[in-house]
C-alpha cells in the first residue's frame, strides 16, 4: 500500500513541495496567489502555508489534486482528502506605484512575510560565478533600483491590507564590503521610521563585524546569511561566487557574531536539502544550532533548463532531516517563533509536526499567540525595546 502524507501537515507540506499539485481546469492557477506567479499558495490544516508547484512538467504525475467541494477546498490523493485553504491573490499586488512600477515587481508574498527586493542584482552572475542551482531569476544585468518612496508605498499597502507584519528585505548580492547593508540602509530606516512592523534582512556576510552591529542598530529584527551548503567541497563547487567573494569561514564567523547580537531565534541560514548528502545537511544543522543560528531548509528542485542535474531527493529521505532539524533546534533552546509560517520552506516549528510532538500548556499558548497579528505586534514591541536597551551610539574616533 502506498504511503500517504495527508494526515500530517508537516510531511504533506514537504511532499507537496516535492511533487506539486494538479489543479482543476475550471479553477486555474490565476485564481489563487502563487509566488511571483509560480505555483499556488495553500494553507494546510494547522495553518502551515505552502507554495506548491503546479505548472511544471513533473506536477502532471503528482498524486495530489486540488478540488472544490461546495464552499470547501480539498487536497486529495489516492488514499483520502484533507481540507485546505488556497490563498487569494492579495489586492495590493494588482496595483502600481506612483512611478508606474507594478507592486508585484517589487514585492512577493511568502506566507507570513513579504519579500521586497529594492534591486534585483547578483554580482555572481555578472562575474559568471553564480550558484549553479540558482532559481532566483537573476541575469547578468542588474535590474532597476526601486526608490525608497516606491518601497515605502508598497510596504504601506501590505500593512494596510493586513497581508503581513514582516517585511523581508533582500539586497540581492553585491560586491561591497558591507554585504549590501549600506545599500539597504535608507530602505530599512524609512520602513522603521514610518511603520511598526518587523524587518528581516537577507544579505551577504560583511567583511567587518561592525556592519552586523549596524544592521541591528538600523532596525533589522532578523538576519539571514545563507550558507546554502554545509559541505566545504560542495560549497566551493556549487557556490563559486560565495566561496570566492565571501568564503565559508566568513559565513560562519558572521553568523556566530550575529547570533550573539540579535535576539534568540532571529539569525538564520539556508541549507538547501538535496544538494548535499542528507548526513552533511544534518551536520550543518547541528553546527548552526550550536552557534544559536536557525537552519532553514529549502528543498532543491532542478531549475528548468538549468545545467545542474541532481536528482531531487524524495520525501522519505527528506522527512528525517526535518525531524532532526526540529530536535536540534529544540535541544539548543532556540526560539522557533520568529522563523515560521514561510510558504517556500519548512521551518523548525513545522518540523515538530513531522517529529510527531505536540505542544501544550504555556509554550503552546505562546506559539499560538506569536502566530497572531497581536503576537507579531508584541514581538515588534519587544524587539524595539531590546534594541533601545542594547544599542549605544558612540563617537567615532
Amino acid at each position, binding site marked *: 500500500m502506498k504511503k500517504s502524507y495527508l494526515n500530517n501537515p508537516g510531511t504533506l507540506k514537504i511532499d507537496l513541495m516535492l511533487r506539486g499539485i494538479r489543479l482543476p481546469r475550471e479553477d486555474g492557477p490565476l485564481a489563487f496567489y502563487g509566488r511571483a506567479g509560480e505555483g499556488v499558495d495553500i494553507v494546510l490544516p494547522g495553518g502551515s502555508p505552502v507554495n506548491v508547484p503546479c505548472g511544471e512538467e513533473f506536477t502532471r504525475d503528482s498524486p495530489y489534486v486540488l478540488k472544490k467541494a461546495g464552499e470547501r477546498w480539498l487536497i486529495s490523493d489516492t488514499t483520502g482528502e484533507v481540507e485546505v485553504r488556497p490563498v487569494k491573490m492579495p489586492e495590493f499586488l494588482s496595483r502600481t506605484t506612483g512611478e508606474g512600477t507594478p507592486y508585484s515587481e517589487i514585492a512577493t508574498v511568502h506566507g507570513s512575510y513579504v519579500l521586497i527586493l529594492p534591486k534585483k542584482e547578483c554580482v555572481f552572475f555578472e562575474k559568471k560565478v553564480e550558484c549553479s542551482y540558482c532559481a532566483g531569476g537573476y541575469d547578468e544585468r542588474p535590474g532597476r533600483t526601486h526608490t525608497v518612496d516606491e518601497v515605502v508605498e508598497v510596504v504601506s499597502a501590505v500593512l494596510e491590507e493586513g497581508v503581513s507584519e514582516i517585511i523581508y528585505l533582500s539586497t540581492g548580492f553585491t560586491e561591497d564590503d558591507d554585504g549590501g547593508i549600506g545599500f539597504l540602509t535608507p530602505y530599512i530606516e524609512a520602513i522603521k521610521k514610518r511603520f511598526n512592523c518587523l524587518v528581516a534582512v537577507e544579505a551577504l556576510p560583511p567583511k567587518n563585524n561592525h556592519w552586523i552591529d549596524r544592521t541591528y542598530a538600523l532596525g533589522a529584527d532578523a538576519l539571514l546569511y545563507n550558507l546554502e551548503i554545509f559541505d566545504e567541497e560542495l560549497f566551493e563547487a556549487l557556490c563559486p561566487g560565495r566561496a570566492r567573494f565571501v568564503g565559508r569561514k566568513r559565513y560562519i564567523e558572521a553568523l556566530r557574531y550575529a547570533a*550573539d*547580537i540579535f535576539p534568540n531565534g532571529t539569525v538564520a541560514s539556508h541549507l538547501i536539502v538535496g544538494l548535499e548528502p542528507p548526513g552533511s545537511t544534518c551536520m550543518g544543522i547541528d553546527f548552526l544550532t550550536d552557534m544559536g543560528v536557525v537552519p532553514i531548509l529549502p528543498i532543491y528542485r532542478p531549475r528548468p533548463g538549468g545545467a545542474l542535474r541532481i536528482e531531487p531527493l524524495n520525501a522519505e529521505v527528506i522527512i528525517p532531516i526535518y525531524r532532526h532539524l526540529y530536535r536540534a533546534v529544540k535541544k539548543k533552546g532556540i526560539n522557533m517563533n520568529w522563523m515560521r509560517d514561510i510558504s517556500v520552506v519548512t521551518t523548525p516549528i513545522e518540523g515538530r509536526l513531522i517529529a510527531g510532538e505536540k505542544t501544550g500548556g504555556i509554550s503552546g499558548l505562546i506559539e499560538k499567540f506569536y502566530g497572531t497579528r497581536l503576537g507579531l505586534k508584541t514581538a515588534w514591541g519587544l524587539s524595539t525595546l531590546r534594541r533601545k*536597551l542594547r544599542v549605544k*551610539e558612540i*563617537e*567615532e574616533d
Partner: protein
Amino acid sequence: MAVEIDRRSIWVLLVLKGLRPAFFVLLAAGFYYLIKMPTPEGLTPEGKNAIAVFILCLILWVSNIIPLAITSLFAIALVPLVDILPKEEVYGLFGNEAVFFILGAFILAGAVMHSGLSNRIALVIMDRFGSSPARLLLSIYLLAALLSCFMSEHAVAAMLFPIVFEIAKSLGLRPGRSTYAKMLFLSLAWGCVIGGIATFLGGARVPLALGILKETTGRTIDFISYSVGVFPVVVIMLLFGYFLLTRLFSMDIDSVEKAHEVLKRRIQSMGKIGYNEYMVGIILVVTVVAWATLGARVGLATVSLAAVVALFVLRLVRWKDIEEYVNWGIILMYGGAIIMGTALERSGAAMWIAQSTIGGWMVEPWLAVAVLSLLALLFTEGISNAAVIAILLPVGIGLTGGVNIDPVLVTYAIAVPAGLAFTLPLSTPANAIAVSSTYLTIRDMAKAGVIMSITSWVVFNLVARFYWPLIGLGGLR
C-alpha cells in the same frame, strides 16, 4: 556615528535603564523635602533653600549624570525660583568679570593654537634642547609646564600629544613596556598639571575661584600676586617630579636621533614663520604684560576682551576658527557656579554649613588650610576641578567667619590643590590623554601619581606656612 551593542543580560540593562529615572525621582523628592522642612536654628529660610539647591547641584556635579554646564544652568534657574536671590540679581551675576576673563583667555589661546605658533614653539624647543634622552625628556616636561602657564593645560596636552606620540613611535618604543615611553608621557601630563597652576591662564579654575571670592567678599587677587604665591609650589613640584620620574623609571634608550628627524620634518612642513604667528605672538606677550601691570586697575577681563578685539581687528583669526576652541560649557558652568557661591554666601548658608560641620574643631588657620587643601586634592582626583571649587569654596569662605583666616588664603587653599591631579586618567584631561597613548598604563600613572599627590599636599602646606607670611599673604602662624 558608530554603534556598539551592549551584550549584557537584558534584565541588567532594564535595571540600569531604570536607575536614571529613579535617581531623578529620588533627587526631586529629597529636594522637595529640604525645601519644605522647618528652617534649622541659626539659618534663614533663604539659607535653607540655598543649601537645598547646593546639595542638589553637589550631587549632580559629583555624579556628572548631566553635563556640568547644565547643572549650573539648573542652579541659575532654581536660585530665584526658591526665593534665595531676586532674578535680576541672579542673571546680573552671570556677567561676572571672571566669566569674561575666561572667555577672552579661551579665544586668545585658540588664536595661538590656530596660528600654529604654539606648535612651532614646542617643536623648536624640543629640537634645540632635546639632544639626549634625558634632555629630550626634560624639554617635553618643561615645555608642557611653560605652555600651561599661558594656555589651558588641557589644550597644551592635546597639542603636544601627537608630537610626543610620534617621537615615541620613531624611537621604536614598545607600548606598555618601554620605561622611557612611560617617562615621556608622564612628563607631558605632569608638566601640564604643574604648569597649569602657575598662572590664571593654566586652567579656568583660578578665575572661577576669584569670581566666587569677589562676589562673596568683595576681595580679589591680582595676576602677579597669585603667581608669586604659588611660584615655590610650581618650582618644587617640577623639580620633585623630574626626580621621581628618573627614580621610578629607567631610560631604556641611548639615542634620540630618530626623534630629531621627526621634529625636523615637522618643523620643515610648517614652513617659515608667518605674519599671523608674529602678530598673535605679539598680542599674547602684550596681553600677559597688561594682565600683570594693568589687571588690578582696569580689570583682567577688560584686558582679555581688548586682546580679543585686537585679534579680529588685525584679521588674525575668523570667528569660525575660534568657535571650536571656546569651551562654552565651561563658561556656562562657571557662571552658574559663581551664582551658586553668591547665593550660599548672601543667604548666610555658607557660614552656617562651615560652622556646623568643620568650624567647631577647625579652630587654627593652618589646620583649615591643611584640611581644605587635602579635601580639594582628594576631590579633584574624582571630579572636575571646576566642580571642586564650586563645591568647596563657598563653604570654605563661610568658614572664615568663625576661624580667623583670610578668605584669600582659603581661595588659594582650594584653587591651587584643585589643579594638582596626578593619580587617575579621569582626574584631568592631561592625564587621560597621556594614558590614551597606550605607552603608559593606569597602574603606572596611579603608582607615581600617589607619590606626587602626597608630596604636593605637603609642599603646598609648607609653602603656606613658611613662605606666604614672607610675602605678606595672610597669617598662618
